[in-house]
């Protein structure tokens, strides 16, 4: 009898372990790179697993590519930071609902000896205009990412067209955020990035923040996918994740994320 009880007791943890919802459900998230590189997902995934029993499998690419992947039904949820691209995605009918989640700040990074010249500018487009006038080297991601889209938007606001710029100072790299930052630092050039990426970037060398845009923040949103276009997506689980992230608990979770003591995301 005693042996039987011991056997039953020994099985209990295994049953609990196997029935734990964390191991039964997962969704595929198409995401911008900055969120993954900053460590944000490492912060939220364990909490989502615990609260909802859902795991997030994250594909981190530029926003343009993330939207493309979602248009191929390769994803249950989109977390990106380019409003116009996201609204266009909704218009295609593949996107179901877009919810603004949080924001960080856009930063212009530049070489130590030149950064002060941008700091006094009132608006990010003024700072871009000054870069243009002075012909300071500027590295553009050129990869249709959310950051690249923002950069193009700011040039437009400044009344300028990058396609007409001299290749002596306007340097397109066509790579991800980390490689772009590395390039701009080694070339002693300016570049646009976001605060989460910058705070978590380890290879800063002598580069510094030249300008922080506090007027036009970098908004991240979650977009669910339309099951009538992508029948195999896990809509229920995706909605649960969105509901959690936009709830008060989700907002606290977002607020608690920091890099080297700096809070980088602010819930909306």
């Amino acid at each position: 009898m005693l042996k039987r009880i011991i056997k039953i007791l020994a099985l209990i943890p295994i049953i609990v372990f196997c029935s734990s919802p964390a191991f039964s459900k997962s969704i595929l998230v198409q995401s911008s790179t900055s969120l993954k590189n900053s460590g944000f997902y490492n912060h939220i995934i364990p909490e989502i697993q615990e609260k909802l029993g859902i795991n997030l499998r994250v594909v981190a690419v530029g926003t343009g590519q993330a939207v493309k992947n979602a248009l191929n039904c390769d994803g249950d949820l989109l977390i990106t930071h380019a409003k116009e691209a996201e609204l266009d995605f909704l218009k295609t009918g593949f996107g179901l609902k877009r919810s603004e989640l949080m924001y960080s700040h856009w930063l212009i990074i530049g070489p130590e000896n030149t950064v002060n010249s941008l700091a006094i500018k009132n608006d990010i487009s003024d700072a871009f205009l000054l870069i243009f006038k002075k012909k300071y080297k500027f590295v553009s991601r050129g990869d249709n990412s959310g950051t690249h889209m923002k950069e193009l938007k700011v040039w437009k606001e400044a009344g300028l067209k990058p396609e007409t710029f001299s290749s002596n100072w306007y340097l397109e790299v066509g790579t991800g955020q980390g490689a772009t930052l590395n390039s701009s630092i080694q070339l002693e050039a300016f570049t646009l990035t976001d605060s989460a990426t910058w705070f978590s970037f380890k290879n800063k060398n002598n580069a510094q923040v030249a300008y922080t845009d506090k007027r036009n923040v970098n908004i991240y949103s979650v977009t669910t996918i339309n099951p009538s276009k992508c029948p195999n997506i896990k809509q229920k689980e995706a909605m649960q994740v969105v509901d959690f992230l936009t709830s008060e608990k989700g907002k606290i979770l977002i607020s608690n994320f920091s890099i080297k003591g700096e809070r980088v995301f602010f819930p909306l």
Partner: protein
Amino acid sequence: MFKENPSINIRDISYSIDGKYLLNKTRLKISGNGITVVLGANGAGKTIFLKLLSGLLKAGNGEIKTGSKDFSFRNSAMVSQEPIILRRSVMSNILFVLNKVQPHQKIMASELIDTLGLSGKNNQSALTLSAGEKQRLSLARALITQPRILLLDEPTANIEPTSTIYIEKVLAKKSSSGTKIFFVTHDINQAKRLANDIIYVENGKVLEYTNSSVFFKKPITVNAQKYISGIISDAQTNN
């Protein structure tokens, strides 16, 4: 043509982040000629050392002199492990570092393209090159500035043997014509092939600076012996 260059005097340079010294009170008098290979485990301080010489990082204290003059970072060019490639042609990638392109520099760029085995690719988009070709292009771009000092941080770490051979040949040629070269590598055989002298770094300190043949025959420190024999590959503390 060989020309004798003044030695590079490094006097007590240090670099720290958040109170932790990544390079501590380094004092060296390095030959102004030849290829100096910097060896050491991951995290030993090799890249920091190179970046201080390139001007990408500023030392917290100490000074670097060429002979009796202040070291000019403008005379140096650096090639990193991850090549910086712009979205434009191979030729444009080389020329963009020049303020104003002179006709002879276009000829020089073409010669570099040929020497580095990239013939016929002048107008090809550089983003379509292989990893090794990108690294060769990166070297061509550094050389077009005709640097007095060339700094290379593991340039052949992730590339195919053909590219490595091209790069090594060009470096040997440049060295013999008077360009001072600093080369970081983990490849002991490559170090033996290229080095005139060796700097061995560990935990932010230069433990040895000596002639290459002497170093490989009998390194002074036990850890350098272990490193050569492959026992140490990551930063270790002796505390």
